[in-house]
């Protein structure tokens, strides 16, 4: 698996920097069964109320999206940027948002968010001591309308 390959949000492949993240439960299941649930919906429209509804496939959703980021997703950089900058499509509650950096050693390193300059911008200085390797920046934000969203941005430092 390449370092910038996106996997399920709460999953990590063995040997991957994501592996140490405590996995949250997820709803993946053999697709045939989920599909049966999907079929149950229309075909058993009359029955949904009586019990078939839980069979529906329901990927969850939220709506704070990253419009742009530094570093860019999948970027291969010669040196670490001075700070990470994420621009969202929503106003963000900075006091209740977090960024964590996972390095090649898989250890989580919380990043202190910079003071708010723009309601849709979340920034955090990066440590000056980052070495070469694959990194994962995990962000979690609270939009001011109360929606919680998280995501990962992977990037690689080639070393100086």
């Amino acid at each position, binding site marked *: 698996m390449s370092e910038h390959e996106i996997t399920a949000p709460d999953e990590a492949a063995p040997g991957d920097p994501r592996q140490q993240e405590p996995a949250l439960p*997820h709803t993946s299941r053999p697709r045939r069964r989920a599909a*049966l649930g999907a079929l149950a919906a229309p075909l058993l429209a009359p029955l949904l*109320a009586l019990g078939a509804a839980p069979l529906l496939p329901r990927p969850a959703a939220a709506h704070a999206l990253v419009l742009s980021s530094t570093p860019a997703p999948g970027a291969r950089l010669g040196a670490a940027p001075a700070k990470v900058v994420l621009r969202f499509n929503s106003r963000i509650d900075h006091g209740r948002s977090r960024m964590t950096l996972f390095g090649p050693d898989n250890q989580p390193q919380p990043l202190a968010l910079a003071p708010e300059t723009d309601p849709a911008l979340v920034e955090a200085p990066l440590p000056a001591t980052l070495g070469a390797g694959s990194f994962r920046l995990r962000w979690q934000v609270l939009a001011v309308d109360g929606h919680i969203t*998280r995501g990962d941005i992977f990037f690689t430092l080639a070393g100086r």
Partner: protein
Amino acid sequence: MESLLDLYGFASVVLQALLLLARTVLLGSVVFWTLLVVPLGAAMPGAAHQLSGTARRLVLGAGLATLGLTFLAAALAVLALAATLNTGLGAVLGADFVRAALGAMAATVLLLLLARADGALEPLRRFGLLAAAATLLAAAVAGSHAMARTEGRGMLMAATFVHQVGAALWIGGLPALWLGFRLPERAARAVGQRYSPFAMAGVGLILLGALGFWLGYIGGVPAVYGTAYGAMAGTKMILLGLLLALGGANYLLLHRLESVPSGLLRVKRFVESEMALGVAVLAIAGSLTSVPPAADLLEDRVTWHEVVERFTPGTPRLTSPSHEDLAIPAMQAQLDAEWQAAQQRAAERPQAFTPGEGLLPPRNAQDIAWSEYNHNWSGIVVLLVGLAALLDASRKVPFTRHWPLLFLGLFLFLFIRSDPEVWPLGEIGLFASLRDPEVVQHKLAALLVLGFALAEWAVRLGKLTGRYRYVFPLSMLAGGALLLAHTHAIANFKELLLVELSHLPLAICALVGGCARVIELRGPDVLARRAAWVWPACLVIIGSFLLIYREA
């Protein structure tokens, strides 16, 4: 706590839908009580007194529901946030959405206190009720999508406010109006006539709000079919069109065609259908709160070509998929290529998820083939049911009144086919398989089909009467609403959206069919005769869609 996070995405959508419903009825009932019933008192004091009690009880009931649901929705978000931040509740309680929820709860409590006392509604209490209702709505807007927008926030907040005022004036007042039809005919007609201006103003405000949403959240026609937000908003507009048709018919019956036989009864039936469709519209609105606006998703949209391709009828898959099927490896190769391409695209764009959310695994040709096989066979059964019910409506083929027995075929299909690894097809014994909750779900669904078929058959034979007759239409209505209320992919997972697009027409047909069957059961005869053709036609359409259903 992990269970809470796993539940968070879906539970928040369900709570939002229920909260919207409760709040809309609350606000509509307040308006009905203060601005319709009170003035009615000058002309019809007896009717107004009776209706005042009805409206007050509605305000109390909907108020309590609003209060409880606001608390639950906020509590769920607070717990999820505290869990994901790994912090105490105190650090979370100052968030904007919590303050908005507290404001809404305070306004609701004030409404409840003002509605608590029975008796005449003096001017000060009327003003207090309306002011508290406006405060509640303002607090709701403060916790809406619009509040978090970076551009056009003022316009979108105003659009949200007027849209919800419109929904309250029209949809929210329907339960009170419906209960008002219990009055003697002259008074009931007067109530209906006085309700019309509120409904019309409601329509205008809903459309005005929708215009703001179009400008701020959607932005163009390709977004309507290309994104989950757009598709749901489009479905909402279709349902709004149906609601307008019903409302227009009511207006004519109340104001222009007063001498039509059983006119008021027709209005009552249409109002019942309006309420059912209104619930579905609010279910969609609740669902919409969970997806990013279409305007923010400019990439990876479903194209018109893909929609046409997916809806172009093909040969139904009526044979069991097997590893020997040469089409399967070919499809798998294509899916693998698509997955790789999607992964590549995803790596170049930031992804975003709700905590606890899982991704569907890569698509598997065998699974798709099974799904299509299941849908297509089910389509045959539903199509046959619809055709038999149409023949039954003609009253010319007596044995077709046994059409519910066709559902037995569906029962057998589900019972046997849902889990091929389990008896009778697989090696796992039936009792051993029941340790798997999914198998239990599937078997229960199959048994429900069986019970449903037998019950409806008994209704057809006249052996079951009374409320049992409504099991079939109410289930159709609930099924349609639930299909509309489920959550959606945050980003444009094309395949999920294409599946969703193929389910939306089914939901609309289920809603229309359910309403028609209720009208057929409740009369008057002139409507029942027409409605008897409508719901079988809806089943024929559902069956046809299922028959041509494809996932690749």
